[in-house]
């Protein structure tokens, strides 16, 4: 028996919007610690990891670990039927092949039940080791979104370089090149506007902007985004989900050409 009651139902809606473009089908894993998801995109270049801790739910009951395969597009369709202020309750039976989303209006005068069929999904669960990252950049999420959007109109690859001067996003395309440099800036009125750069080691990696842009779908979830970079490791783009968890996107870097092009 599974019963999760989330008062701030809009969070779940935003979570779905932020991952459904990247992943079509995924298994939601429910355990006593929380509600989580890990899935790769179809080309196995990006990985999304979602965690909603049990403490974040008003009511969390999970008798036994349960993995529910869902089509995220369909799930998103159902969640769109919930109002932004609605309370969402996810219910499922052990061994059942459906999941029920219940939407309660804040005034309790409207209750909607949506039952969705589950599906069997063969998913590969990857172990993600904890790693020390060479550089960690925290910046306003809408700023990051804007940068990715702007750069993707110029080129298809962004090179993110962190040096002690700041973090540079650069791209090159047929029409020209673009460089956006952000400097550390912690003297701001609102802490979420700060740009914090922790650099242990300079790092420069290139990534496909297409994926970065799909990561920024999570921008509504959080005012800030944390980008962790390490050479030899996928970049981690993390958005906090309120106080209850996170969405982390992992993206494999593009392999730099090492060969010298001397003539």
């Amino acid at each position, binding site marked *: 028996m599974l019963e999760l009651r989330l008062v701030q139902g809009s969070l779940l809606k935003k979570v779905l919007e932020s991952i459904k473009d990247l992943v079509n089908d995924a298994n939601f894993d429910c355990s006593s610690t929380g509600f989580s998801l890990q899935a790769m995109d179809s080309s196995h*270049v990006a990985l999304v990891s979602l965690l909603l801790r049990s403490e974040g739910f008003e009511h969390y009951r999970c008798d036994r670990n349960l993995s529910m395969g869902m089509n995220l597009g369909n799930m998103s369709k159902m969640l769109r039927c919930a109002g932004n202020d609605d309370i969402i309750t996810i219910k499922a039976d052990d061994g059942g092949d459906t999941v029920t989303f219940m939407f309660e209006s804040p005034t309790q005068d409207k209750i909607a039940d949506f039952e969705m069929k589950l599906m069997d999904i063969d998913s590969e669960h*990857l*172990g993600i080791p904890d790693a020390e990252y060479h550089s960690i950049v925290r910046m306003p999420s809408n700023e990051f979104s804007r940068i990715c959007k702007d750069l993707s109109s110029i080129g*298809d690859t962004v090179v993110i370089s962190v040096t002690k001067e700041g973090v540079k996003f650069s791209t090159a395309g*047929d029409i020209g090149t673009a460089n956006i440099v952000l400097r550390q800036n912690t003297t701001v009125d609102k802490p979420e506007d700060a740009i914090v750069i922790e650099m242990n080691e300079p790092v420069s990696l290139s990534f*496909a902007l297409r994926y970065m842009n799909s990561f920024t779908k999570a921008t509504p979830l959080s005012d800030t985004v944390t980008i962790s970079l390490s050479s030899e490791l996928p970049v981690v783009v993390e958005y906090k989900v309120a106080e209850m968890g996170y969405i982390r996107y992992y993206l494999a870097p593009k392999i730099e*050409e090492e060969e010298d*092009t001397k003539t």
Partner: protein
Amino acid sequence: MTHTETLNILDEIESLVSDQLQVVSYKWLSRNFSLSSKTAKRLLKDFVDKHEKKGLEVVYTVSGWLKKRPSDYHTKLVSSSKLQEVEKEFNGTYFTHIYSVQASIPMDPAAIWNAEFVQAEELFKQPSATDNCLRDNRFCGISNCFVKRDIEGATANVTVQSKSGLNSSIPKVGHQAKSESTTAPAQNQSVKSSSDKEKPLPVSTSNKKNGQGDKSVAGAGGSLKNMWGRVPVKAEDGSAAVEVKNHDHSEAQKPSHDAESKGGSDDETRDVNVKRAPKNDSRKRKVIFDFSDEECEDVISLASPSSPKINPDSEQTKDSGPEKLDVRVSREIKADEPEVSEEDSQKNASADTSGARKNEKSKASSMEKIQASGSEAEVNPSKGRITDAPCSPKRKKVLKSRIDDRGREVTEVVWEETEKTAKKKEDSDDTSKKLNDGKSANAVNRAVAQKKSPAMGNAAATNAGGKAGSKKGGNVKDPKQGNIMSFFKRV
């Protein structure tokens, strides 16, 4: 190939396979060391025989008719462990060659030709001035009538036709030059000298152990970078042409024209020549039509033949009369190495460009393209081009013709000159075609790669698409894109 060379290559293969864990395929080997693919396969065989017990994995390509009905001609890539099993599927005679040698069979079949793909990309990325085995279509099993190999052909394994055409063209050029102008002897000398110089270059490249070096030496590719690089050169041509308007077009252009026509006798160039021959005799306009039909690249190529010569010519033409110019040009060409001339030409081009643009803003774009083509032409120092070099002062006329083509207005301005320019255009077309050939050769190679690995599926297709296609297509997989699975292990 000498025994020591073979040993060196075998050593290199060993280090690549066992230390760098690279997949060494015969194709990669062929391109890297400028060997024919047969030799490369033989080398791999030698290598496998020698290192059989070191735990190498060998991928064979088995081709032949299948036993099952309906019988198809089939080519399969097979690992050594399954070789016997697969061979049973084939009927009667079939061929088994070594396709590649690697430390282990890669999980992702695309990895088998990843090295080849990266190599091909590098070859095409090389500056347009360098010639390489892809640009001259050296090892491609499909002959391309547009690719002509130059003097270098004599040294390397080349298609026979291109050699003969080039050789025959050279002496004739010299002869005509003599008859037409006093400068002819100088031209001949220059041509010979240049040819002499060029010959040693290919030899040295072939001797190089490092495949990369070989590739960098030769070839004109069609990438955007190359096109951009060419632009300044064209501007030079245009300016030079303006200054040199009065120079003798007949001398330089005719020889080149003859060379081309003779080249036409060759199998490769037949089609081109047939089409062009009437055009040459007739007015420019016809030529123009052909060009207009062709893609921009061709247009660019038109100017290209003259570009290498332009630099010296333009400088001297200003000071002296046309005859002197030719002589000096030829001498300079002899003295200067191709690279030097390129640099000069670029400088000149940049300076000249401004003037040219002032004259014709609207035409500037076309000019740039032409310049770009010129730079490519420099890359491949062929005899035909050398002959063109003395004509460089006439380039300006060529540019005018271009304008005419687009506007169709100016054709009448200089009649004779226009004919000559037309000839030049033809020459340039040839060069352009060469450039195009490089591209086509690439395409062929990629296509071949795809065919070989049908199992690769999407990955193969993406590889074939290459960088060119990947830019805009969001769904196209980038060969350089890493895989998240290579960073995290499954639980």
